[in-house]
């Protein structure tokens, strides 16, 4: 324990020489490590506000996953992808997949987990494979119309709340699920809604009000 404290003190000492945003990143890391995700979220949000590159958004999103706020996490991941795409890596994809999973966007989760490579290390790699194995029977079965209706209802609620990113996520899932059915249940509705969501995201990006 003393050695751990000494190491953390060394890191802290070195990081103090770094300016604003990174000091908040370090505080966020400390809180995150201690399981104090609410405090970590505040620190990462301050870092995101101070930093010029937008990379802190990835950490904000991952912390929202830990706080069991998957829909907000999905919006934040979308923001991170648009502002700091170069920072994306397998670890963030893993957290992004967990956000999709918690929002019941299982096809989205599976797609992200399939792309998680060896760079995340053996433990997270094994976890990714385990989650995919759990998802396989769920996402390969023919979905009931009531299941697809649920995704449409969520998308409509997201539209109403002004979240084009979320609406798009639910409708992408609805399209993929419709493809699993011979009758393509409500596929046309889903595609039309998806086009509307994409137009909304593009407009928000132009006006700087992405959500």
């Amino acid at each position, binding site marked *: 324990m003393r050695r751990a404290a000494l*190491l953390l003190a060394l890191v802290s000492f070195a990081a103090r020489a770094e300016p604003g945003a990174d*000091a908040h990143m370090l505080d966020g890391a400390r809180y995150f*490590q201690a399981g104090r995700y609410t405090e970590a979220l*505040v620190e990462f949000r301050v870092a995101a506000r101070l930093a010029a590159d937008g990379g802190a958004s990835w950490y904000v999103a991952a912390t929202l996953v830990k706080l069991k706020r998957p829909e*907000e996490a999905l919006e934040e991941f979308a923001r991170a992808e648009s502002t700091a795409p170069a920072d994306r890596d397998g670890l963030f994809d893993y957290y992004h997949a967990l956000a999709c999973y918690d929002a*019941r966007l299982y096809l989205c989760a599976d797609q992200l987990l399939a792309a998680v490579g060896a760079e995340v290390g053996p433990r997270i790699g094994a976890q990714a494979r385990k989650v995919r194995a759990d998802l396989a029977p*769920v996402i390969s079965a023919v979905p009931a119309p009531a299941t697809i209706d*649920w995704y449409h209802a969520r998308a409509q609620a997201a539209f109403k709340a002004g979240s084009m990113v979320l609406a798009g996520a639910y409708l992408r899932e609805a399209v993929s699920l419709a493809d699993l059915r011979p009758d393509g249940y409500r596929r046309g509705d889903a595609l039309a809604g998806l086009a509307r969501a994409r137009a909304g995201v593009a407009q928000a990006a132009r006006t700087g009000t992405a959500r």
Partner: protein
Amino acid sequence: MNTKIAMMVTTAALASLLVSRSAAGAGGAAPPPGKAAAHAALSAAADLPATPPRLPVQASSEARAALTNKAFGKNGAATRQAHEQAEQHAVDGAAGARADAANRAAQAAAAAAARSANADDHAAAGQARATAAKISHGGGRP
């Protein structure tokens, strides 16, 4: 177990820090230490989902209305707004606190520099007086 994880995180952060320092020295673009520590913390805390996957089913219209209200409607919007307001307040506070601390540190450094400058002035004045006294007494040369 916690100690072991803490050791792993801090060791990874320190290693990243050392790599970032050396890479920066060599003109590379390694992540800054705070970001490296945050990445290590995320890696250590990445776990499995708590519940098994289960496809949802659209409920009856009453249940649907309740669900919509819970997720995005009055309750959902209120919860989210409360989260956002509380976090905004905390973010403002955290940013302000650090700025205050930086200001206090800068003021302390300025005060120390002023004290140091005064001390130097006193020392210089003393040295000048001693030199003048030596000269007036016929000394001053080595």
